[in-house]
Structure formats: structure tokens, C-alpha cells
């Protein structure tokens, strides 16, 4: 419960808002764990565990549906306005982005099956190195974006938006590295394409974290910054600003 969900004269309203809020945190934890596990399967060359990760994505989907139902019911019952309305719009968007983070984690798990299942052809371990290093980065982005929502911490949200540019650079750098494998031996093409897909999934996860951080700015400030450059977001949030 935070300043956005508490304080209604009708206490049941607080409870319903808090329930939705908790669902977001639960989905956030689950998709971060999924991402962790997916990359771990790649590291440990474990296709069986990768299948378990893919199977577990259904839990994310179920929570997504559950949140959507709770959201619709709450809108119908309470006709929220002002910060309550912004909270619900934000929850709706965050849940959608988190569900897609789950989908991207599933894609990385599929990569493990593609590379290491039975008689599959294994890639050069150097090729997947950047996936490992980028994972920690994007996982922290997702965690921070969800925390910024939970704590209404605009500085944390802005940091996520800011570091997404670093992630983009990291992604481009990783693509350049992969191209050297192709130059060395054209037969690497199959593996390179799959690794690119894995990198792309991580880059998209970073994008979802950035989106979530943007929604938090909307939630607190009432201003839609999704399509604004970083400078405009900083101008809106201001230095050292905290939730009013």
C-alpha cells in the first residue's frame, strides 16, 4: 500500500487497489525470476530446465488475466478519477509490459533448447557471452522499474530511462562482435541468427523496463513522457524531486 492506494473513505476500495498493486509486484518478481532462470539454462546448457521455464510462462499469463479482471471490476465498481485513475491506467500498462518481458524470457529459454537439445549443434561459447553480461543489466532495469512503481520513486524511474541508452549501445556493440564470427566462418550464420534473437529479446526487455519507468512518471506527475526525449523527462521530473 502506498500514497496512491490508501486513504479512501471506503476502505474496501483501498483493499482492491492494494490487491492490484501487489499483483504487479508479484508479476514483476516472477518475470525477473523467469529471465534469470532462462539465462541460467543457457549457461548450464540445460534444455530440460529451459522447458520448465517455458511452461512456467503460463503462470505469468494467468496473473496477467487475473490483473486485467481485477482492473475491469474496479473500474466498473468505483469509476476512479485523478490519481486513482492514473494508478489503474499505469497498472494496466505495466502488467502488459511485464507479461511481454515474460514472453522474451521464454524466447531465451527456447534458445537453450535450440542449441543444446540432444543432437543440436552447439555454438561457440564466446557467441553467447554478451547475452550473459546483458542479462544482469536488463534484470536490474526491470527490478528498478517495478520498484520505482512500488515506491513512487521518480529518480529511480528516470535512472531506468537513462540507462536504457547504455543498453542500446551495448546491443549494437554485441551485434558488431557477432559479425566477426560471421566473417571468420560463414557456417556460423545459424548460430549467429539465434544469438541475435536472444540479444534482441534482452534489448526488448530493457525497452519494457523503460516503458514502465515512463508510466511511473505519468502516475506521479500526470504527464505522458513515453515519447519524450530524456531531457524532457528530466525537465518534467526535476532534480531531486520526490513524490508530492
Amino acid at each position, binding site marked *: 500500500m502506498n500514497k496512491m492506494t490508501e*486513504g*479512501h*473513505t*471506503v476502505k474496501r476500495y483501498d483493499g482492491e487497489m492494494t490487491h492490484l498493486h501487489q499483483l504487479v509486484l508479484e508479476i514483476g518478481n516472477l518475470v525477473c525470476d523467469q529471465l534469470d532462470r532462462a539465462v541460467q539454462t543457457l549457461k548450464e546448457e540445460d534444455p530440460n530446465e529451459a522447458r520448465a521455464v517455458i511452461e512456467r510462462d503460463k503462470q505469468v499469463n494467468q496473473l496477467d488475466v487475473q490483473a486485467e479482471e481485477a482492473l475491469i471490476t474496479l473500474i466498473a465498481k468505483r*469509476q476512479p*478519477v*485523478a490519481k486513482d*485513475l492514473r494508478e489503474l491506467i499505469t497498472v494496466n500498462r505495466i502488467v502488459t509490459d511485464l507479461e511481454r518481458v515474460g514472453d522474451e524470457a521464454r524466447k531465451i529459454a527456447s534458445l537453450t533448447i535450440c542449441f543444446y537439445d540432444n543432437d543440436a549443434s552447439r555454438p561457440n561459447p564466446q557467441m553467447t557471452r554478451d547475452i550473459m553480461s546483458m542479462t544482469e543489466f536488463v534484470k536490474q532495469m526491470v527490478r528498478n522499474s517495478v520498484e520505482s512503481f512500488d515506491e513512487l520513486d521518480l529518480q529511480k524511474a528516470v535512472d531506468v530511462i537513462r540507462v536504457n541508452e547504455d543498453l542500446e549501445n551495448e546491443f549494437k556493440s554485441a551485434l558488431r562482435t557477432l559479425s566477426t564470427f560471421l566473417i571468420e566462418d560463414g557456417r556460423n550464420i545459424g548460430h549467429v541468427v539465434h544469438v541475435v534473437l536472444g540479444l534482441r529479446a534482452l534489448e526488448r526487455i530493457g525497452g519494457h523496463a523503460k516503458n514502465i519507468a515512463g508510466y511511473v512518471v505519468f502516475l506521479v506527475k500526470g504527464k505522458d513522457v513515453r515519447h519524450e526525449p530524456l531531457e524532457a523527462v528530466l525537465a518534467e521530473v526535476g532534480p531531486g524531486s520526490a513524490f*508530492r
Partner: protein
Amino acid sequence: MEIAIEEKKGGALAASRSALAAGAKREATVPREDRKTVGDVAVENPRMTCREVNVYYGDKQAIKDVSLDIGRNEVVSMIGPSGCGKSTFLRCLNRMNDTIDGCRVTGSIRIDDNDIYDKRMDVVLLRAQVGMVFQKPNPFPKSIYENIAYGPRIHGLARQKEELDEIVEKSMQRAGLWEEVKDRLDQPGTGLSGGQQQRLCIARAIAVSPEVILMDEPCSALDPIATARIEELIDELREHYSIAIVTHSMQQAARVSQRTAYFHLGDLIEVGETDQIFTNPRHQLTEDYITGRFG
């Protein structure tokens, strides 16, 4: 006139407290200077201009330095908890408070640049110019036709029967009532349904060619369908008139008005575009009220 933006502050009150207790708590915790109006009280080319209006009932001050414009062809809704002064302010706009003993109004209220509290102002004419619709439909105990014809007749707006007929028909058409009653104009107005009676009262206000229509909770005694019809009518009437409406239904304020004014303990706390007020209010008191956190 842009007045200082207030920081949001303070928390919500316990649910178990009564509205009165909540109000008293706010009174104690929100300093006077933090209750200056947030938002632009002025509009371009206003129909009515109110500046620093104060209303006293004996020693008690019910309205405190309220300034607000009523624009042309706009609906302004006034919201706030019970006892906040929104109805008192509305009643100042056509001097209905004159009828209350011990009521004193200071400040300036002008319509088309004429001071409505000027001694030379004809109050009967003013109330034709600024019509009013009340919470409970109050048709005269006369026929439907006479309910509408009475005003134009005493104000000398029609010289012949044909002209009066035309005013009656046009007023009822504008009020969305004509098709339902045109075949029974001689029947008593009190025999209509609640929603029809309220539209009859609106037609009666329209018949004397007002510039402004004041509505004091016009739908609170109506069912949802009748309410929807009145809301639709308000939207249509905006084409010809300025409308100020007091309502306890925030959803209604959000649906029908272009600007919303939030009153609290006699202060006009915030005024702004309705879209802004209901998505991102700038004052904590407005936010707390419209999100159901007190009041």
C-alpha cells in the same frame, strides 16, 4: 488570473469520521493561505464575472473571497462537500440570497458588465436573464402551457397569442419536451413524471430568453434515465446559454461541464478544465475529495 500553485500535502482522514469532522479537521490542518484558488478563474469574453465575493449569514461567513467567471456557451460545474458554499455561491448569481434574512453579499458580480447588486438593478428582470432550475421540480399548479407562458406574458415578450404559442413550442422543443406533451398542453404540469417536470422547469426558464441558467442539483431527484435526458439537454442548451450547475455527482460534473470549480468550507479551492480536474487535479484537497478520500 493565475494564482499560486499549491503543493499537495496532508493525508487522508479515517473513514469512520463524519463529513463534518473531516471538514473540521481540514479546516484545522490546511492553513488559510493554502486555500487560495488554484487555476485560472478568468475566461476570455465572460458572460458573468464574479470577483472577491463574500457571503455572510449573520456572523457566519459562508463564501470567502471567491472569484470566478462564467463563460459564454459553457457549462461550469461546482462541486464540493455539503456545506462548502457551492449552492450559496450559485444563488448569488441571480440574487436568490436576497430572500434570506441576515444574508449579506460583498464583492462584485457582473453580467455583461452590469453590476447585479447595483441598486438600480431590477431583480425580476435579472432573474429572467439568469434563470434557475432547482433540485426538486417545482412546476406551477397550472397547465403545461401556462407553466411556460406565464413568464413571457408577465415580461411582455409576446404581443399576440400566436407569438406566445411560438415561444411555448420553441422553449419546450429546446427542453426536449415538446414531442411528449404537445397533445396535452392543457393538462396540469404537476401530472408529468419527475423527469418531465424538471424539463418543464427548464423550458420555463428558457421561455424568458435568459443568458445564463443556474441549476442546483437538477438531477438529484431523478432516476438514471431521466438524469441522462437532462444531461443530454444541458449539452444541447450550451449552444445558446451559459450554464452553472451545482452537483453532488462528480461523474455528472465530469460528463456535462467544460470547467469545474471545487469549493471547500467557503473557499474556491481549484478551478480548471474538467478534463484536467478529473485526471490530474493540482490541489490536494480537490484530489482527496474527488477520489473519495474525505467529505
